[in-house]
């Protein structure tokens, strides 16, 4: 199963070269600042920053487009609720429904923020190997039990998902088609899920033995050290100033009213 991670990490761009901890802090702050934006007048700036970031990262456009998939259930609900039920200024009537201005603008805001945050997130996680990012989090203070669990889960995700595929193929080859929702189908699928759990559990017992045999738990393992060079910090500073700019602008614009 191709989980599509680490596809473009080998490219070369300023973002690929940015030190992982600085990048994590800088881009996560930016992402939160984007979620803080409520004023429509800041949208062009937000989208411009996002666009620039993506271009600088040299990640291919196809990558972004495939990831900007059909919005989930919630976005759909919001896309229906907001334009038709939110606000009082009616733009046009379609039968019993009224398209409202405030709702449409709210929807525009939501979509712009969603796109900006998702794109920035792609840049953050797509320009360095997953492993490096997790280690950087550890260096920033993530408890070791969480980073150990994340790395172990990530490692076995591929094997376990291959297992699922193999079992589903085997079931299909013996004529099982999950078409109708009945007791038998549910029972079979529950056994499938249960089997995945049991097999992973049994493998974890063997993995634990292998870890113990190589000294697991004897001494705390060294944390990887990261060296942030001056230009990494300068770029971080720049990004933080930009983020602060958005926050200040948002607050000021709120003060002046809509």
């Amino acid at each position, binding site marked *: 199963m191709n989980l599509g991670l*680490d596809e473009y990490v080998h490219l070369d761009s300023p973002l690929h070269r940015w030190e992982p901890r600085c990048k994590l802090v800088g881009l996560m702050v930016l992402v939160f600042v984007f979620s803080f934006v409520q004023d429509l007048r800041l949208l062009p700036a937000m989208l411009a920053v996002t666009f620039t970031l993506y271009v600088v990262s040299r990640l291919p456009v196809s990558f972004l487009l495939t990831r900007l998939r059909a919005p989930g259930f919630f976005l759909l609900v919001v896309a229906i609720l907001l334009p038709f039920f939110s606000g009082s200024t009616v733009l046009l009537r379609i039968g019993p429904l009224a398209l409202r201005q405030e709702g449409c603008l709210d929807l525009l805001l939501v979509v712009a923020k969603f796109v900006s945050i998702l794109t920035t997130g792609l840049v953050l996680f797509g320009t360095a190997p997953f492993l490096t990012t997790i280690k950087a989090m550890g260096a920033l203070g993530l408890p070791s039990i969480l980073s150990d669990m994340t790395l172990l889960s990530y490692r*076995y995700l591929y094997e376990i998902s291959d297992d699922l595929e193999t079992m589903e193929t085997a079931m299909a080859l013996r004529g099982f088609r999950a078409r109708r929702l009945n007791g038998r189908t549910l029972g079979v699928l529950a056994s499938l899920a249960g089997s995945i759990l049991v097999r992973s559990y049994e493998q974890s017992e063997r993995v634990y033995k292998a870890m*113990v045999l190589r000294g*697991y738990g004897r001494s705390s393992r060294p944390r990887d050290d990261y060296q942030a060079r001056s230009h990494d910090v300068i770029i971080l500073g720049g990004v933080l100033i930009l983020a602060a700019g958005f926050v200040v602008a948002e607050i000021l614009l709120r003060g002046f009213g809509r």
Partner: protein
Amino acid sequence: MERQTQRPERSDSEEPALVVSGLFFSYPDKPDVLRDVSLEVLQGERVGLIGPNGAGKTTFFLLVCGILKPDAGEIRLFGRPMMYRDFYPEIGMVFQNPDDQLFCPSVRDDVAFGPQNLGLSKEETETRVTGALSMAGALKLADRPPHHLSRGEKRMVSIAGVLAMRPRLVIYDEPNANLDIRSRRCLIRFLQASKEATLIASHDLELILEVCSRVVLMDEGRIVANANPCELMGDAELMEAHGLEKPHSLVPHAEPHHRSEKRKACAKGA
């Protein structure tokens, strides 16, 4: 004060790598998995362990590594008694399924796991990792994630992970399960070149013939025979009585077509 000596003092280099005497073991739901098992492996010696599935080979290995606690009997590693649950870096075990042993997201990290747990410095760890990967012929795989490797590559990387601890006794549990012909040949060459004391459990009797200087036959938790490979595996009756077969290359051939000179000699004598 009276000093209890059970054996004359031997220097460390003369001690057998492994001495197992009178080992008994039962699982809570399976009694008598191992009955009165005694075995000796000398330093630098390569011993094969053969027998049908369920004979107790893997259980035996887990006992020898200190992961399980014997019900009775003694295990001595390089002359010193082994205590359950203590950590013995001088013994290493290569598991049947390399995925069970490759649990880090990159090959380099996985091979470094053991040395890091030993408390070695960064430089020393680096040296060990490079050395182990070179020995296993897997240096070019160092920065790959394990799930992108083929079975043969995973096998050699898992071996590197064990070698990085510099063990003096290495145990292999079915090392060539699921390997293709080329990877199997690569493994055989590697085993033939290894200097550590080695204990290999395998169903691949030809591999045992090529690699080991002694073979032990285990069935139903007991050691049934312990002899030179040609002798033991050449005894068709014995092999068949315990769910095995005489290896093809030991069957007398009108036209010799097997590689090893040693086996040709065996075949002539059989």
